[in-house]
């Protein structure tokens, strides 16, 4: 059960071969994952990849079909959600509409069997930290989205759980508020130091918040790693294109000596190459340079459009094999649609993936 954070809680989660089946449909196909104490872990992936389902299995809201889940060495499969020492912040916040803010926070704390004074001191502490004090007598419907969010977090904090689960907590907030709350959550994690598992489909949230990102796709884990690891050494084409914005361009290339060629579209030198004669070349927007005109050495392309973003600009150009490539340029160097360009790649800046199964190839 929950302990005082200041006394140094330990919360290690271990998922072993977790599968989830709804009737006949398999949603999770064997998840193995270790989550360490005080880590901020983000499950990220496209809609329907199973990240929310996995979170609900950890919470205990849905039963695990197969596999085992251990928390601090205790098997949790058959433990009721309220006894796992886990608190969850829901996407819709799920505040009790008939209770005011104080009652929403007190409800779970009282059910833990804490005495009145302890409940009150925890609520006082939490409401101060989350700046909820002026709102304590309000009902949820009288609160703004951001305020509801803070109450939902407060309700979880008051229980002093070992593990916090957050299910897309920012998705109901408007864009301006979203980055504020994101910072607050990061600060919160630093202050309270609990283990947090955060689900999002937004890779920017994942990159900015996580100690460890778990990229999921179609019920499987594609890669686990720090934001830097995922960005710099994506394990496969899925992770490569999911992390980073604009997304990495993947081009089918064939090897010609130390150069890589695109069908009828020129060739480019990218530095050291992995073994093999044909693979997918992965180019992030900052790995490529554009030169006006064609004829020089490089891949030939036609500009489709340019996104001007103030501090920099992104040019989208179509290669000879119809791949749409994105490239970062300076705002002083804008390209017009239909302009012909030549693309070169900075040595060592490219990624290589197997043409057969999309796995990363090291040069």
């Amino acid at each position: 059960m929950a302990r005082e954070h200041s006394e140094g809680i330990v919360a290690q989660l271990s998922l072993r071969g977790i599968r989830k089946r709804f009737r006949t449909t398999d949603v999770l196909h064997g998840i193995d994952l270790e989550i360490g104490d005080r880590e901020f872990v983000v499950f990220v992936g496209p809609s329907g990849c199973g990240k929310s389902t996995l979170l609900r299995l950890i919470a205990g809201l849905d039963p695990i079909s197969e596999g085992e889940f251990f928390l601090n060495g205790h098997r949790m499969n058959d433990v009721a959600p309220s006894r796992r020492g886990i608190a969850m912040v829901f996407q819709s916040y799920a505040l009790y509409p008939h209770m005011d803010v104080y009652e929403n926070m007190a409800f779970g704390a009282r059910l833990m069997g804490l005495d009145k004074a302890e409940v009150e001191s925890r609520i006082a502490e939490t409401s101060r930290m989350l700046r909820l004090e002026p709102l304590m007598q309000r009902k949820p419907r009288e609160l703004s989205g951001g305020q509801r969010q803070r109450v939902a977090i407060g309700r979880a904090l008051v229980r002093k759980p070992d593990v916090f689960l957050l299910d897309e907590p920012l998705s109901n907030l408007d864009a301006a508020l979203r980055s504020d709350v994101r910072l607050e959550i990061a600060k919160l994690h630093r202050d309270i130091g609990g283990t947090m598992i955060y689900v999002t489909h937004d890779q920017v949230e994942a990159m900015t918040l996580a100690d460890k990102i778990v990229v999921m796709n179609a019920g499987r884990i594609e890669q686990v790693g720090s934001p830097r690891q995922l960005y710099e050494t994506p394990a496969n084409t899925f992770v490569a294109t999911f992390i980073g914005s604009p997304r990495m361009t993947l081009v089918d290339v064939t090897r010609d000596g130390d150069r890589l060629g695109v069908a009828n579209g020129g060739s480019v030198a990218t530095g050291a190459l992995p073994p093999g004669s044909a693979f997918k070349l992965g180019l992030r927007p900052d790995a490529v340079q554009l030169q006006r005109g064609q004829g020089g050495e490089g891949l030939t392309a036609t500009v489709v459009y340019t996104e001007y973003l103030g501090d920099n600009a992104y040019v989208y150009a179509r290669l000879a094999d119809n791949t749409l490539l994105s490239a970062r340029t300076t705002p002083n160097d804008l390209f017009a649609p239909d302009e012909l360009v030549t693309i070169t790649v900075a040595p060592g800046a490219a990624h290589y993936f197997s043409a057969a199964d999309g796995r990363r190839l090291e040069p």
Partner: protein
Amino acid sequence: MPHLRMTGRGLWITVLIVPPLAFVALFIVYPIISAFAYAFFDWQGLRRGDFVGLENFHTVLFVEPYRSWTINAFTHNVIVFFALMVLQNGLGFLLAYALWRELPGARFHRIAVFLPVVLSTIIVAYLFKLFLHPLFGVVNISLRGIGLDWLAQPWLGQGSTALWALIAAQAWHMVGFPTLVFLAGMQRIPGEILDAARMETESEWVKISKIVWPLVAPSATIVFTLLFVGAFNWFELPYIMAGLDGSPYGSTDVLGLYFYRTAFGNVSAGQQDFGLGSALAVLIFIFIAAFATVMTLRLRAREIQV
């Protein structure tokens, strides 16, 4: 042509609203108003006599034997109301909760629970009269069959059980209605709110009493108010199962039967008195209207927006 459209729309509204309004006026508003008027006159059969002021009200409330009859019938209505509050609305709430939680067979039971509601009261009443027959009824045969002979009673034939037998039949008939209303109310509770509660407690009782019950308050308002009105207007089922006299010996008499007997007479007594009957009807109407209004206002106050 917005003007033309409005006319067409207005025409539609008129066509749709006027017939039911006329119906309500003719069969509900007019009888209520006329009952108010009749109650202040002396009646000789169908012939209206002198204006007697509050005399009829005084008679039904304070002059024997009317006084005892009124108290007897009213007491029974009160019993019926509270009994059905438990057996019909209470059970309906629990059934709705069970159906809502999607226990195995929920789909079948949803239909099974609601099916009796669509049956005619006449069918239900006759069926239960047969079920409760002292010799051939399925209830007593079953009780004897499992060796509980001492429990086999002439359910409708003795004062101690007759009213409760009617209440049981009524509860069986209508329990699906509050169930359906509560179920609809529960289905409006966002799933994540129940999930949030599950994260904090594993006690079904806490979830029911602290989360679900307060959140289905609007449904409770509806079924409580309708049950109140229904319980004090109760007529068809006791009329069919126990007859106009509330047999045996007035032990199932309720205000509806008593009013009918008084206003239109019955086979055994033969007398009829529109004045006293109307006075009773007016008193019942005022009681129900006043109480239902207070009840609705108080119940509405505890509703919250989800």
